[in-house]
């Protein structure tokens, strides 16, 4: 059956559009299945996925009662704490000022390298509690503007 040229053109553009969108959806789904987080968990480090002296980000929770403030021999203050993902731990040292929201039991992301002793030497520590950032969407915003839940110990 012969088709009128403008119908054919319309049909072709619809087909192209539908295939295009489905390929895009498929690619995005594929991508979201790959683990592309730019930070490693302590478990990944324990499994030896990270080389010594390679600059990485680690993410996890600050382990309860693991934070120590120590004065080093060169009289610099150093903070030591353990980052955990509840399966594995990693020791972290940091010698700069910690943010206010850095607390035991809270989420933390640190940038740095693992040294030969297996200790993570951080050059930047960002501590954030769960509602740290305010989404523009109202509902998120409401959740986020500081929720006075009971202070955890």
């Amino acid at each position: 059956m012969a088709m009128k040229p403008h119908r054919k053109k319309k049909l072709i553009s619809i087909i192209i559009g539908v295939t295009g969108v489905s390929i895009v959806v498929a690619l995005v789904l594929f991508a979201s299945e790959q683990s592309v987080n730019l930070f490693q968990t302590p478990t990944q480090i324990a499994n030896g996925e990270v080389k010594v002296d390679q600059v990485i980000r680690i993410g996890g929770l600050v382990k309860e009662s693991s934070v120590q403030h120590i004065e080093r021999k060169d009289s610099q203050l150093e903070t030591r704490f353990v980052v955990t993902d509840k399966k594995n731990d990693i020791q972290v040292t940091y010698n700069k000022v910690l943010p206010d929201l850095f607390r035991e039991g809270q989420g933390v992301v640190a940038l740095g390298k693992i040294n030969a002793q297996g200790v993570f030497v951080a050059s930047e520590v960002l501590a954030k509690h769960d509602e740290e950032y305010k989404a523009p969407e109202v509902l998120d915003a409401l959740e986020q503007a500081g929720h006075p839940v009971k202070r955890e110990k």
Partner: protein
Amino acid sequence: MWNWFFQLASPKWFYTIARKVTPWLSVLMYSLMLAGLVLGLIFSPADYQQGNTVRIMYIHIPAAYMSMMIYVIMAVAGAIGLVWRMKMAHIVSVSCASIGAMFTALALLTGAIWGKPTWGTYWVWDARLTSELILLFLYLGFMALHSAYDDKKAADKASAVLALVGVVNIPIIHFSVEWWNTLHQGATLSKLEKPSMDTSMLWPLLIMIVAFKLYFVVTLFHKIRGEILLREKQASWVKKLVADSKQ
């Protein structure tokens, strides 16, 4: 329905309605703004972790929310202007830009100031911060493009195209920066229960969000009226209006 739509498209009709409505909206805005400020600054408690810096939220969240909403309005109005060649839609779109850019800048500044006491740094290349910064660039690009054209009609169309391209890009930007640098993973681990919000903090925030929206509408109406007058200077009703206002 369509009748109403075309009436809305008439600058004269819009001008008269905006002039009638604005005073009422302004009164509502002022009272809500005042109520929100009093509740937020004086009567709401400090947060258990952030202390009094939580009060920054009552202006920061509404500003950030408006910055996104205004961009969408700007792009939708631009699209309507392109498709139906409606004068009024372009006027709305163009009048949105500077208000949206201001809210974006305010959201960035207040966020940065909030970040200093809470994280110990003014700026982090975090997903939300970065996408908000790019949103500011998009607004500035829109305004720069619009002012670069001498011909108003071409300027309207060109900047509408840009706004639409930007609106397609915004989810992609948001997605990409989240992927590139976000700290949410650490946070989800600690999210044992869903955070709830105390009503003493919820109220000032809600009131401020509504007040900011009203502020946007009132300011937009003022801007639109100014813009309509300039663009419709050959229309007889504008001539009459100007002549009347002199007496």
